[in-house]
Structures are given as C-alpha cells and as structure tokens.
C-alpha cells in the first residue's frame, strides 16, 4: 500500500510539472466564423525568441454565413508564414469540405468545421519597439551582435541603455489572423495573437508608427 501511495504521489508530481509548463512555440485558438464577425475564445500568447511558431486555428461556421474568406496574418510587421488546411487524405465525398488555396478558404458552408495550421517565421525585431526588421531599417552592432532599428529614436534609446534592450531583439506585439469575407470585405473571424517579450509586453516600449 505504501508503495502505491508513493507511486501515486510521484505521478501527481510529474503530471503537475507537465501541466504547469507551457510550450510557448505553439498555440491553439478556437473560434466561430459568423457573418457579422466571429470571435476566438481567447487570444493565443506566444513567447518571443523562437525562430518558428505554430498556430492551430479551429473554427466552426455559424449559420447563416456561407461564402469564401480570405485568411491573412495582420500586424505591425509582416511575418513570413505558411497556412495549411487540415482535410481528409482521401475525400470520400460524404460531407462537404471547404478548400484552401491562394490564401482563401473557398466555399464555406454553415456548420463546416475548419482547422488551419499556420507556420510563422518571425523576423528579428527592433529591440526597443519590437517591430520586425525590414529592408531599409538602420543597423548597428553591439558586442558582436547586429541589431536593426525602425528609426533614429529607437537607435538612440538603445545606445543610451544597451543592457536593457540587448536581449529583446525578438518580435513583440499584437497580431491577428484575420478572416475576411471575399464578397463583402467584412471580417468574419479575428484570432488575436500576442507575441510577448522576455521582459513581458506592455512595459512601455511599444510605440505606434
């Protein structure tokens, strides 16, 4: 009996550690696609610093919506990404299955369920404001590492206090996986995605450009 209690407690300990730990390079959002704008149940929070992230966005089409929806990753900076729709390998034609091509979910019908896999490769970011590095951004070296800056003010802030910013060159900020009806241009679902920095987003470093 004592052995069983010990094993039970060991199992509780291991399981608890597994439950508490979050794998922050992927997230799952569950949402509803609605004609008047659907919502995801909760935002997906991803920790900055990885080269690759995976978002799984599952959604149900709520009647009476029917149509096609463009799917775009929107935010302050462009993030290279790929989107794939989960579908049957061999479609037996028993039920209707939407198609995904050229960034558009074609022929969504009421009560369809879709699961999109979004593989994102965020670029390095301005360590001060968190915006993704783009062509034309200023560059500077610090302790052998290259940093990009969206403008003069960010570069100055960095130079004044490099120790504060040197580990923050990963993308931060709020992004959205936006589903927009191709006919009306209206949003039918928004999935919020937050890239949080190691220093935690919201410390006053983000600014609007």
């Amino acid at each position: 009996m004592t052995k069983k209690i010990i094993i039970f407690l060991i199992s509780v300990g291991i399981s608890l550690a597994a439950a508490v730990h979050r794998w922050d390079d992927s997230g799952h959002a569950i949402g509803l696609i609605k004609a008047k704008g659907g919502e995801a149940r909760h935002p997906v929070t991803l920790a900055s610093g990885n080269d690759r992230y995976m978002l799984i966005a599952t959604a149900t089409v709520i009647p009476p919506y029917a149509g096609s929806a463009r799917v775009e990753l929107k935010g302050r900076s462009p993030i290279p990404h790929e989107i794939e729709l989960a579908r049957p390998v061999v479609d037996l034609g028993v039920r209707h299955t939407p198609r995904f091509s050229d960034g558009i979910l074609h022929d969504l019908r009421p009560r369809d369920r879709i699961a999109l896999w979004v593989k994102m490769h965020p670029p390095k970011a301005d360590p001060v404001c968190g915006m993704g590095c783009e062509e034309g951004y200023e560059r500077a070296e610090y302790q052998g590492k290259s940093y990009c800056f969206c403008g003069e003010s960010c570069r100055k802030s960095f130079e004044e206090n490099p120790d504060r910013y040197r580990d923050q060159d990963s993308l931060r900020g709020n992004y959205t996986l936006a589903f927009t009806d191709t006919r009306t241009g209206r949003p039918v679902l928004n999935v919020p995605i937050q890239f949080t920095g190691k220093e935690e987003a919201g410390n006053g470093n983000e600014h609007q450009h």
Partner: protein
Amino acid sequence: MGTNTSTKGSFWSRNRVGIILTGIVLFLPPLSVLFQMTADTNFCGSWCPRMFFTWRTGMSLNEFLMGFLRSYMGVALVVGILVSTFFLGRAWCSHLCPIGGTMELGSRIVPRRLKIDFSSIPASPFRYGYLAVYLAASAVGLGSLCCNYCNFATVPRIFGAAFLEADLMYFLRTAGIINLGLVVVLGFLSRGGRAYCNLLCPVGALDALSNRLGLHFGKKMRVDPGRCNSCGACSKVCPTWSIAVHSAAKIDQLTCMPCRECEKVCPQKAIAYGRPT
C-alpha cells in the same frame, strides 16, 4: 472462476488483430471513414473523447455543457465505452481503440532487444495520479494536460503526415515532438505496446474504474485459483502487466483489458473470460 468461453472458438479472440486493423482503417488516415461522416478529419473536434469532461477555471456551467455539445461524438463514444466495459470488460481498449491498437501492433514489429519493460511501475496508482492532475489542474487554473499531451491527437497525425502538410505541421513544434516521443517510447518501444494506455490515457483510467465496478456483474478476465499452478506464463504475455503471480495468478481489474493473450498461453486453462460464477 468465470464461465469459460473457448479461446479457440471465440471470434473476438481469434480475430483481435484483424479487428484492430479494421478500427485503424475506419478511424485513421488515409481513409478516416468515421470522421468524414461528421465533417472532421481526426479525433480533434466533435470526436474528442477527452476535453469535454475537463472543467477549466473561470468556466461557466453553460460553457462546460457546451463542450459536451461540441464533442457530441466523443461523448457518445466515452459513454458507450463505459457502459460496454461495465458489462463486457474493456473491449474498446483491447479490440477497437485505433490509438492503443496502433501502438500495440507497432510494438510487435520492433525488435525485442529495443523494447523497454515498464512493468516495474505499478500502473494503477500512476494512472490515477495522472487522472487526478488531468482533472484538477485545469479546474484550479494551474495548467492543462488535455490537448498538450494527447496520443489521440498524435497517432492519427503520424499516419496523416505522410500525405498532408497540415498533419506534418503538428510535429514541427515542441509539444508535437514531445507527444511523438511519448508515443514512440511508451507505445512502439514498450513491451506489449500499451504503456501509454496504461499510464497516461485518461479515458482508459475512467474505463478501468467501470471495469472494476462491473467485476461482480459483467464479463471479465478471471482466474481459477484451483487450477492455477503459478507458472507465470500469463504474466509474461500480458501487454498491460495486469497479472501478479504469487500462490496463484491475480488480475488487476484497474488495468486489465480482455485481449485474452493470457488465456491463450495458460497451460492449465485457469484463466477465462466470463461472468462470475
């Protein structure tokens, strides 16, 4: 001792591998026949048998019940499993589950020298420790085991990854790699192929409770201590390490499933699947 049903004459016993393969064809890619009936592509969605019974912190009763509606096929599956187990033993696990079946059949083609023997771990206290955290952690907001660790999400994508980029993407993240590792180590590489089922399957843990509760009513694997000569042959072939042999073999109904491998090898015909007498 239970009423013996002849092993040789039993359709379920003779054709277990074929029945498992049928389950794999019906549930898993490339055909995924049953999922396509409900506009799903795998167990994630209306067929999810695990998420609906987990209460998450901050959830209203209405949201909790909506989970049952969202996973209506999973609810039907789990209710069916629990009721059938009460009367017939864990036939879902032994014969029909495509996930456990895949891991067991997969383990059969792995060379014996590569196999890991987990039988020194007492399975029932471990699985109920896992189940306790599975239910409690999300209820009190500490985190979640549901979805993060799920062989019902992993195994179908192992099949699908050969055909679809979307299924391959499941493994291109830390959680996917860890889930694959768990399925490989606790499934394909484990002796008997059922260590994952035995230790980390929450449905299996609930199902085992139903099995134990139905011990005095339904069909179960039972030992006739008068016939048993304690040779231990049954214990060696049990994929769920449910049989302890001392003066006679004793079956742990919190882990046993009626695969009937023990019945096949018993030289004394001391183990049988049947009702209590």
